[in-house]
């Protein structure tokens, strides 16, 4: 931190000013002039919260993607299919048992199993051949998409939000003060906050597991040098299977989350594959904190864009990607 300030004093200043402005925008009561210029504070706060919570969902999808890539140098373009598969499984479970939590557990286990099968049956046969793996996973994603279309139809499904999560909560953030002097607080959908909290917990747990445990150490060692790690007697194939299962399972969980606050339908697989690609390109391939930062940036860009520049909202994400690729092609938080 201090080194960064010493090395880039100008950038540090800009970042600090930006943070102060954002904090002020979030916590103060907006003067009327500002409301006139950029709209009501409620809209702004909602867009920010939506961006952050959407970022949570993107992070869940992209973290599995980046984990698999980080260890195996393998771009799994069937990752979006795993997301959609997890969502459909979650829908089936929650529709038949009525339990939202159970949907997560079963979706995680089943998609993790599919991940294991993919690893054992497909990727192990073409280890180290990047192009072949990429082509095969594209093919697989098309096959999976058609199989799911056949099984579930083109209908859109929504996983029922449990009744204790429906509706908004009041947050201690002022949006306006009524003329009577009574403060108006921000009301925000509870389910999104819970999902965001869950993705933060998963993210932190993953970071801790990678950086503080023995298995994490093995995985990180595998990222740096697979061959030497294998030579030291670690059963690297087992580690691969484990990581693949975890990454796929996370995509499955994300599917249930996505099915809860958005919806599931054919085409979602591609959308989330694209989103996670953009997220990891922005954040840095193979880095978990990078995926978190990328997801946050993309989520915020999408939501703020859809409010303030609706016409060009779609372009914003790709503009960010282009900028990152031009200025820092390895991604914002890539390992050197």
């Amino acid at each position, binding site marked *: 931190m201090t080194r960064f300030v010493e090395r880039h004093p100008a950038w540090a200043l800009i970042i600090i000013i930006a943070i102060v402005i954002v904090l002020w925008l979030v916590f103060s009561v907006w003067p009327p002039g500002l409301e006139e210029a950029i*709209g009501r504070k*409620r*809209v702004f706060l*909602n*867009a920010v*919260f*939506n*961006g952050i*919570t*959407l970022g949570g969902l993107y992070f869940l999808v992209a973290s599995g993607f980046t984990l698999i890539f980080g260890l195996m140098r393998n771009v799994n373009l069937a990752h979006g299919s795993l997301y959609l598969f997890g969502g459909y499984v979650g829908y089936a479970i929650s*529709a038949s048992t009525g339990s939202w939590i159970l949907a997560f557990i079963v979706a995680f286990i089943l998609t993790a199993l599919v991940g294991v099968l993919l690893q054992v049956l497909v990727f192990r046969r073409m280890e180290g051949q990047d192009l072949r793996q990429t082509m095969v996973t594209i093919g697989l994603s098309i096959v999976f998409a058609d199989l799911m*279309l*056949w*099984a*579930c*139809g*083109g*209908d*859109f*499904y*929504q996983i*029922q*939000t449990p009744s204790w999560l*429906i*509706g*908004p909560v009041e947050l201690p953030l002022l949006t306006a003060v009524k003329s009577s002097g009574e403060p108006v607080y921000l*009301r*925000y*959908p*509870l*389910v*999104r906050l819970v999902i965001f909290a869950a993705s933060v917990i998963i993210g932190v747990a993953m970071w801790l597991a990678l950086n503080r445990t023995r298995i994490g150490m093995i995985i990180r060692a595998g990222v740096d040098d697979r061959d030497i790690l294998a030579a030291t007697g670690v059963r690297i194939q087992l580690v691969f299977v484990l990581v693949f299962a975890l990454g796929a399972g996370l995509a499955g969980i994300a599917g249930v989350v996505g099915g809860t*606050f*958005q*919806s599931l*339908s*054919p*085409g*979602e697989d591609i*959308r989330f594959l694209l989103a996670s690609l953009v997220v990891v390109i922005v954040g840095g391939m193979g880095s978990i904190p990078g995926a978190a930062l990328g997801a946050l940036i993309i989520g915020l860009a*999408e*939501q*703020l864009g*859809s*409010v303030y520049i*609706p*016409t060009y*909202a*779609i372009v914003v994400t790709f503009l960010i990607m282009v900028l990152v690729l031009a200025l820092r092609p390895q991604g914002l938080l890539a390992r050197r």
Partner: protein
Amino acid sequence: MLKCSVGLLALSSLFLSGAAMAQDKIKVGVTATLEGTYTVLGEDGIRGHQTALNVLGKKIGDKELEFIIASTDATPDSAVRAVRKLIEQDKVQILLSPLSGDEGIAVKNFAKTHPELTFINAASGAQETTYVDPAPNFFRFNMDGAQWQVGLGKYAYDEKKYRKIATVGEDYSFIYTQVFGLALEFCGAGGQITNRQWVPLGTKDFASVIAALPDDVDAIYLGLGGADAVNFLNQYQQAGGKAHLMGGSIMIDQTILSSKGNAKNALIGTLAASGQADTWEDKGWQKFVKDYQDAFPPNKRFPSPSLLATNYYGSTMALILALRQVNGDLSDNQSKFKAALAKLEIDAPNGKIKLDGNRQAIGTNFVTEVVDDGKGALFSKVVKVIPNVNQTLGYDPAVFAKIGLPSRTVPECKKY
């Protein structure tokens, strides 16, 4: 939902075509949005098409109709690609296409490059398709989005006493046309539209859109369809939304009213207008509903046909009736068939339909309100029927032309 009904349809039409090999065939290409946001709409459109074939049969004199279905995703390029494939590879002679607004404009323009063929619009409803520079070989037997909103603005103003509304709509031609129809009437009666929000087709996360909805309006008009509408309603429920709602023609439709989950309950009591009403007591309509219900098992259809099923039914009906009039004669660049289509008046399930000089439908429109049937199923109940709605919405053509083409900001909210 274990088997895709469309797949079955495609299979069965293959079988049927196999049996008819020996006879002379007339090949017809059909497109529907069987992918993307509007998948459900496309599927039900095909069901309507199939229902028409069940009722009317495929025989034209001693010839047999053969249908080839191609899939699109509501984007104009996908529609042109599908139509081109049908013409160039499958050698179809007649097209029943397309489903969605932007697709319609693109296919109409494409139709001009094949003046020898005949295009019958399947369900698309952008105004521009037949109003601006119409193609002589493009016929539309359904009304456009603005015609489908006739009656809504006035009813909302007079009966519901709404004075200020805001709109949220998908950002493409059909919804522009719908808001155009709504605004002309509502603003003409003295109402105000304070805010128009446009979201891209295929938007998944509506939370910010919902947050930006104004509080100081009497109602919010929703011009969404397919997956977008369901997503919106779901997130609207999560955000605890309570405003009065008004709906466009594909928003208040069985494609949404019979979606899974309980988010759709926000729509009970919603005022809407469309080219049909689920509970209309007309005999022809009731017969169509029954034909539709008999054609498919209950889990492979909606409780009642959607607007898309009705439109596909109507266009298929027009195709078959006109072909029968000329006894399947497609010689001389199909000129007899085209002439028959232009003069044709069909007794569609949703009222009589005839064509104007631009080959655009003049038909009946319905103002509806969403009701619960007591068993959890939602239907649109007719509150007003307006016959003989033409494309200029009863305005003098010269005045109508001055309003401009439907877009994000046209028409202005004033009396024309």
